């Protein structure tokens, strides 16, 4: 199904702060972007970037100062839109006097489902998120990761067309993260649209068709993970062993980093063959040659550094 699942236009949010809440801090600044129908979209950004703010605006928990958004063509103020979305809040928390099965049944009641259908879905969801054995335990006795799983279950219980997950992997052990990744991929296979936020870049690289990078409330980049990574210059890394290092090897070794009895050497693509030749001449044993991919991490860091530099420059010129 072509078209936009989520359209965000100039979305802006201020939070009041200070004495009598008279001052405002802009947390989201004119965000405009689209999520295509059927894609897995990763929302990336450091702490306080505005990811949760965007998501809470989309599901109607908070209201924007300016801008609009549409989900599946319906404005987010339209209650009918809520039947088609699933939402996992950040660090979810549920009624602690209910069991997992009860809380899921409660949420299911807000969708048009028969009692039998509700029952079947709740059981299926508990199995899917691995809480089958804990389904009769009150949520007050649940661990953080277990609550996260309940949150995921209630988000996808009603087969929503658009699934919005705020940091779905946080608080989960490695197996849990893997299970969540599998669930996201399954949602994609079923043709659903998934938007999720994270700071874990490898998760985004692994799962997403496209990512949006948000820093300081502004969208700083959007595209396939590879495209965004491609913005950085790349190089090669050579891993080699060298038993006796005579004086002839010193030139090559000067730039290498020694780890144990091995060396790592980073060179540009043009230099590669020259350096390999030199290494062979001094009797080094080449273990591997690999491309250095600038990770999203570095992309992040560069953006933040650039912001800091700019802020500093403004400050200096302002004085």
């Amino acid at each position, binding site marked *: 199904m072509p078209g936009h699942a989520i359209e965000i236009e100039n979305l802006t949010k201020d939070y009041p702060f200070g004495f009598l809440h008279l001052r405002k801090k802009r947390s989201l600044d004119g965000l405009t972007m689209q999520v295509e129908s059927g894609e897995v979209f990763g929302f990336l950004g450091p702490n306080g970037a505005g990811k949760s703010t965007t998501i809470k605006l989309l599901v*109607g*928990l908070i209201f924007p100062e300016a801008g609009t958004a549409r989900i599946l063509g319906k404005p987010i103020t339209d*209650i009918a839109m*809520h039947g088609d979305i699933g939402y996992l809040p950040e660090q*979810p*928390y549920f009624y602690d*006097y209910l069991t997992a099965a009860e809380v899921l049944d409660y949420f299911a009641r807000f969708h048009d489902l028969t009692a039998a259908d509700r029952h079947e879905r709740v059981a299926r969801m508990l199995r899917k998120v691995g809480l089958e054995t804990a389904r009769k335990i009150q949520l007050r006795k649940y661990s953080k990761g277990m609550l996260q799983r309940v*949150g995921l279950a209630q988000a996808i219980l009603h087969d929503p067309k658009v699934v919005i997950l705020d940091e779905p992997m946080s608080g989960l052990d490695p197996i849990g993260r893997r299970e969540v990744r599998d669930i996201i991929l399954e949602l994609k296979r079923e043709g659903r649209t998934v938007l999720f936020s994270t700071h874990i870049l490898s998760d985004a690289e692994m799962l997403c068709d496209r990512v949006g990078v948000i820093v300081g409330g502004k969208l700083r980049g959007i595209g396939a993970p590879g495209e965004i990574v491609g913005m950085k210059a790349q190089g090669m890394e050579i891993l080699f062993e060298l038993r006796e290092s005579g004086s002839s090897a010193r030139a090559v070794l000067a730039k290498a980093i020694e780890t144990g009895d091995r060396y790592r050497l980073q060179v540009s693509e043009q230099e590669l063959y020259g350096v390999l030749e030199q290494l062979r001449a001094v009797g080094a044993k080449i273990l591997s040659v690999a491309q250095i991919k600038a990770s999203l991490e570095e992309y992040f860091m560069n953006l933040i550094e650039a912001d800091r530099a700019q802020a500093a420059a403004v400050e200096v010129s302002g004085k």
Partner: protein
Amino acid sequence: MRRAGAVALNTFREAVRDRVLYNLVFFALLMMLAAILVGGISIGIEDLVIKSLGLSAISVIGLLIAVFIGVGLVYKEMDKRTLYALLAKPVRRWEFLLGKFGGLVLTLAVNTMAMAAGLFAALLYVKHHLERTDAVLLIAIYFILLKLTLVVALALLFSCYSTPLLAILYTSALYIAGLFVEEMRTFHSTAANPLLEALLRGLSYLLPNFENFNVMAAAAHGREIPGALVLQNTVYAALYSVIVLLVAAAVFSRRNLK
């Protein structure tokens, strides 16, 4: 409406699981103790004592539950963030409020009816029979329930935008002021300050009138309660609660969750 019903049932379930209904044990003990004590003296005022004590206890216990749970109805869900996942469901904010309100009123109704049964049991124990005039107690209990409904509406309104502690203060202040509405209306300052008198009179019409719901003395003595008062109190409590709930819905519908 179906969705508000789901919220209401969950609110009721929470109250039950939080052992709110345990107060009934206290009420039962109180009634038993009173029945045994007055049963021993037997000077013709047993039923007056039981009725007064019973009605007062039903009123006070109900008020405590209405205020203390009422002020947390919305606040707690926002504070603990249990509301986040819920409001993303196809449920309107006013439906949520209505459900919370209905759930606590339902809890209070169940609780009050249980206490009423206890009161009649105690009466039966000391008098060995019931009379027609004892039916007036039912009206008194109905009025208590109306009063509690109004208190829940007020507590819910304050719960939408202030902390429980402040909301308790506001709700109790309104309740207490509402007991003196008649006095405010007929107030004549010794200094003959017409402005103050007008102000108080105006205020007396805005404040919830809790005085009209108190028929405990009449009920304890088995005096008739006019049907007009029953109608008036019912309409008054319903209208006032609806208005308060509408204000709460207006306040809450645009509220940003943290």
